[in-house]
């Protein structure tokens, strides 16, 4: 049994990270004030955060090298209201010296780990609900609102209620044509949209160890879709190698103690798992693809902070290369960062996908969050690799959004209906 420094009891990953950042042995249920390693905001939420920061009377941020704002939600600006918010963000960057990733750099949840800002053992907040993404590299990262972000900018600290933890064990090997997206959809379908509210997840399994770091981000990204505060994984060699390639910061990998206390343990046998689909209009409305029935689609989206990474596009290109997106169907690509887009070009993936009939938009959130770049029409069905299928999410309450893996979306583009990707792999 491994004991952590400063603690008298067996701890979960969340308890350990919140202990080391608050200077006290924290246990689930405690409220601690903790030091933050990195803070991010995006263009939907940072405008209000800047207003709150000014209301606080704060003159300086606590440490500009630990703060970034990423302009990704409406990028480039689709209207004058958003332009005014972008301008406010650019001015704040000049006033305070914080890092700014302006239009086209990519989505905050790719940029933040890719640019090396966060490493294992860190405590991170972001004014975006999918900040839980970095749990895949052993970071306790969680979404908060604009006012919390402003308080963090001013003080470098924030209060946290130390969460209890749900342990998720994926048992068995990942079947062919089934991906990390299917694993997380299966979990959310099983435990429902509020199954882990106020809890942190710790996610384990041979399949997790076997998959790439890119694929793991997809799972942690969607932890919020079952209400979880964080979606934590261990930092194995793959993670440490990935982090070393992206960051100069020193990682501090954190594992749970063997006798850590879990609020709940969920075991999922994945050895016979099929591709999973979340049907409109909630993410927990999940069915295996064989039970879906015939669903024609008019639009596909591959990208977003969930599935807009290089590996995702490689899988899509493998299926679509030399084939055509069916007539009457639109395929939109939204890479998660400029670096990914450059890598896609270098590998020839971009060309294969464009030749198959896809169109690409600026690396960013637009089509997923419904601000611009692909709003569906009334009555249309969309198959998307995003994390949410809420009514109106893509900008039209009369459209229907289905969620699946990049392979599922690519296969569906060929057939013009939601299709099982296994026959194409």
């Amino acid at each position, binding site marked *: 049994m491994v004991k952590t420094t400063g603690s008298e009891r067996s701890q979960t990953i969340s308890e350990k990270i919140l202990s080391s950042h608050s200077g006290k042995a924290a246990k689930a249920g405690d*409220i601690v004030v903790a030091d933050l390693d990195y803070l991010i905001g995006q263009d*939907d*939420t940072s*405008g*209000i955060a800047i*207003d*709150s920061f000014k*209301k*606080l*009377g704060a003159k300086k941020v606590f440490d500009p090298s630990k703060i970034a704002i990423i302009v990704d*939600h*409406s990028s480039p600006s689709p*209207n*004058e*209201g*958003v332009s005014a*918010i972008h301008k406010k963000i650019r001015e704040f960057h000049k006033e305070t010296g914080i890092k700014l990733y302006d239009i086209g750099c990519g989505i905050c949840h790719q940029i933040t780990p890719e640019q090396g800002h966060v490493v294992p053992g860190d405590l991170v907040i*972001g*004014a*975006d*609900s999918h*900040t839980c993404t970095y749990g895949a590299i052993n970071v306790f990262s969680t*979404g*908060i*609102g*604009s*006012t*919390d972000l*402003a*308080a963090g900018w*001013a*003080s470098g600290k924030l*209060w946290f*209620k130390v969460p209890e933890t749900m342990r998720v064990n994926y048992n068995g090997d990942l079947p062919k044509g089934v991906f990390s997206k299917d694993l997380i959809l299966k979990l959310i379908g099983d435990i429902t*949209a*509020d199954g882990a*509210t*106020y809890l942190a997840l710790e996610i384990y399994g041979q399949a997790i160890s076997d998959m790439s770091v890119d694929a793991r981000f997809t799972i942690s990204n969607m932890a*919020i879709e079952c*209400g979880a*505060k964080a979606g934590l994984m261990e930092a194995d060699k793959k993670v440490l190698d990935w982090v070393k390639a992206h960051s100069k910061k020193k990682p501090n990998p954190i594992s749970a103690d063997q006798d850590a206390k879990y609020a709940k343990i969920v075991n999922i046998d994945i050895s016979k798992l099929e591709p999973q689909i979340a049907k409109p209009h*909630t993410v927990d409305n999940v069915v295996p693809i064989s039970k879906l029935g015939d669903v024609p689609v008019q639009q596909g989206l591959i990208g977003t902070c969930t599935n807009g990474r290089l590996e995702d596009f490689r899988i899509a290109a493998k299926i679509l290369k030399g084939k055509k997106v069916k007539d009457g169907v639109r395929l939109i690509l939204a890479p998660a960062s400029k670096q990914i887009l450059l890598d896609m070009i270098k590998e020839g993936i971009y060309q294969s996908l464009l030749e198959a009939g896809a169109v690409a938009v600026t690396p960013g959130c637009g089509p997923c*969050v*419904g*601000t611009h770049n692909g709003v569906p029409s009334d009555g249309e069905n969309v198959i998307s690799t995003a994390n*949410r299928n*809420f*009514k*109106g*999410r893509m*900008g039209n*309450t009369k459209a229907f959004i289905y969620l699946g893996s990049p392979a599922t979306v690519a296969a569906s583009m060929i057939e013009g209906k939601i299709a099982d990707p296994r026959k194409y792999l």
Partner: protein
Amino acid sequence: MQGKVWKFGDNIDTDLIIPARYLNTSDPSELAEHCMEDADPNWVSKKEKGDFIVAGENFGCGSSREHAPIALKAAGVSAIIAKSFARIFYRNAINIGLPIMESEEAANEIKEGDKIEVDLAKGEIKNVSSKMIYYAQPFPPFMQKLIKAGGLINYIKKSKRR
């Protein structure tokens, strides 16, 4: 505070409360004009200042956008009573001073159009129409301090002055 009840179901997400297409402003009154639009397009013209929202489980799930509680507050909603709240919404509501109360019983039994009276300090929800009284889950002491101060910004300002 006293007002009329509007009922909503489970999983009322932040896109229903305020869709992303309206996040091109942070002016509370402009946000209020589109509040709950995708759940009920006519709600904004029907509701009156001081009304309550009573909803099911996981109210405010989805995005971290603080525009959601800001829009509800600016729309004149006195308080939200729900079976449960999503974590980020819960925190944001407290931070900006929108009263929220968790009570499964109240959420189950109170009907649309009922008149209710709420005492936040006591956590008491009185249904004037049916004469029933419910008690909400109490907040932890730290959050009570935040609520009493009128949100996080005021709390920090007050603690600085001390």
